[in-house]
């Protein structure tokens, strides 16, 4: 689960890391009122879960109330596309914070290194810019050091990292303290990624986190009540519905609704539908051992997306029993007005019983296919042909 900048900063503040104080606003009037309380100059920053906000025009400095209104009006409601073409992400809230007098801009991060199975600390004196470019063009400018999982990460260890990164001498102690606290955030809040870019030194020589990118391990939310509440806020209506029904659903842009069991098979199903020229409308993993009710729920969610013109069921039953899936399809057809063709491929545990149930129900909009590839081709044709 990714946190918005201001949520990350609130987490930092709770662990004693200096951040500019600010307020969140959802309307232009709220933003102007916040700016008036905070004073000028102030920064108005789009709160979206993607990098490259500055370049996209999502971060502006306001010198007075008129500018604050202008910028908030421009930023709220804008669509931001990520540096690698991700999104667009609609801005529905802004964070307003006091302007900072910046003397230096550094980079600091703590991340889970999956390959090495350790936390990794990275620090650079070249912050405030694209750190991937720094790493590629001037690798020595980025100091990377693993944190020994069996030992305490103390100020001395942190200080040697920030010193090697070449930060200003008079900022070393504070920067080391920030790094120790970032590692504490990782461990205590179950964060798998924490990135501060820039970590600034102010004209008054204070070290302050001016931005935050934080990813929290979704598996650990049971022990973080406050963060679990953030995770509960989902904007998309289908994703919200899926969440309430306990389904793993991700909405995509296409018109072919997809349901499969298991994340790997579901991803593979998206791939073969795309290879057949179709555009998947969603990712929905029905999980292992799905019962008929779960299938009704899943079809409810998929068919509530108005873009969907055909639905593909790709089930290879292991723990999941195909007869349960078939019962779910028959029940869903009776309860919901699907109105779109359904292509079903059932294989694996109890597939013959499942196929017999479907044959017996004689549903008008149902098409059976024996293979995954055949089913993908069929559903793409039914959805309106290759795109």
């Amino acid at each position, binding site marked *: 689960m990714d946190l918005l900048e201001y949520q990350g900063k609130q987490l930092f503040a709770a662990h004693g890391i200096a951040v500019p104080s600010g307020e969140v606003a959802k309307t232009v009037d709220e933003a102007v009122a916040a700016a008036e309380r905070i004073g000028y100059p102030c920064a108005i920053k789009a709160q979206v879960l993607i990098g490259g906000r500055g370049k996209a025009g999502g971060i502006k400095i306001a010198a007075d109330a008129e500018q604050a209104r202008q910028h908030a009006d421009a930023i709220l409601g804008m669509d931001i596309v990520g540096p690698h073409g991700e999104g667009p992400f609609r801005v529905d809230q802004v964070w307003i914070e006091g302007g900072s007098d910046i003397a230096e801009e550094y980079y600091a991060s703590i991340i889970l290194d999956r390959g090495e199975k350790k936390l990794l600390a990275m620090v650079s004196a070249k912050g405030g810019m694209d750190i991937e470019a720094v790493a590629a063009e001037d690798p020595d400018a980025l100091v990377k050091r693993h944190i020994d999982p069996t030992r305490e990460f103390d100020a001395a260890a942190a200080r040697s990292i920030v010193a090697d990164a070449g930060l200003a001498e008079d900022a070393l102690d504070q920067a080391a303290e920030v790094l120790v606290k970032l590692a504490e955030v990782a461990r205590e809040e179950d964060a798998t990624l924490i990135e501060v870019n820039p970590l600034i030194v102010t004209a008054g020589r204070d070290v302050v986190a001016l931005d935050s990118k934080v990813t929290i391990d979704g598996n650990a939310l049971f022990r973080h009540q406050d963060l679990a509440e953030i995770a509960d806020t989902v904007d998309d209506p289908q994703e919200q519905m899926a969440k309430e029904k306990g389904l793993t659903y991700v909405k995509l842009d296409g018109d072919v609704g997809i349901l499969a069991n298991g994340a790997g098979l579901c991803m593979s199903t998206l791939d073969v539908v795309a290879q057949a020229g179709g555009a998947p409308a969603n990712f929905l993993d029905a999980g*292992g051992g799905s019962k008929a009710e779960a299938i009704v729920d899943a079809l409810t969610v998929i068919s509530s997306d108005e873009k969907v013109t055909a639905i593909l069921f790709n089930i290879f039953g292991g*723990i999941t029993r195909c007869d349960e899936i078939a019962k779910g399809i028959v029940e869903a057809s009776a309860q919901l007005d699907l109105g779109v063709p359904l292509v079903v491929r059932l294989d694996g545990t109890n597939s013959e019983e499942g196929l017999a149930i479907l044959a017996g129900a004689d549903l008008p909009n149902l098409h059976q296919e024996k293979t995954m590839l055949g089913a993908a081709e069929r559903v793409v044709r039914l959805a309106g042909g290759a795109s």
Partner: protein
Amino acid sequence: MSIVVGNETKLVVSGLTGREGSFHGLRNRAYGTDLVAGVTPGKGGQDVEGVPIYDSIREAVEREGANTSMIFVPARFAAPAIDEAIESGVETVIAITEGIPVLDMLKTYWKAKEAGVRLIGPNCPGVLSPGKANVGIIPAQFFDPGKIGVVSKSGTLTYQIGNELKQAGEGNSSIVGIGGDPIVGSDFIDILKLYEADEETELIVMVGEIGGDAEERAAEFIAAEISKPVVAYIAGFTAPPGKQMGHAGAIISGSSGTAQAKKEALEAKGVRVGESPTETARIAVETLRG
């Protein structure tokens, strides 16, 4: 031979008194796995369909000679249960539980490494050596004994490919589900090593998916250390476009973690990568038969 589990496996299941644990544990026994004990603290002295229950894994090791532990306990209690297994004296721990916090697994991973215990999973379907032993939730009926070793991050995708191999008349030496979590006890490389040394295995099918750089690392390892043919499949070419938040991930691995990057890394080292599970099975069968 086979790898990880086989005729010599003596299995103890943590969570055998639970609904899932008993269903799968007894299913494994019905397949022929030597299920010697179950463990549930406070329920020592009871039995589940004749399988004795102990309070600790160590007791099961001492009294029943268990050498392989399967973990089927709920996520929030699973890491301590795996730690207990690591310290109990078993050689192999297979953790099926999904949803374990990754920082818990980080500590547990190093415990297993230091103790020299082979950890498979978590969040994996387990290991099946057809005709010998099944530890986990893999539906054994879709696999026959044979010459193809499978190692996979994904459960259902493995069943799909395994079933296509079976229909083509081929079988498996073992099927190892390593799990798709960020931190797993055994990576592709650990299992590739075992298949390389296993006489029964003539070809290896490796099933990966987006995220991390385990496939890229495996590609390097295959080029350097594996003499047997390897055929790969990668899922997730059209996966929800990852909204990349920070840049730190790409910096450490030098890889974007995308399916395309993994496919290219493998092909650059001479590993054939199938476009679909069906094509992957077809390439594997063709390669095996020369």
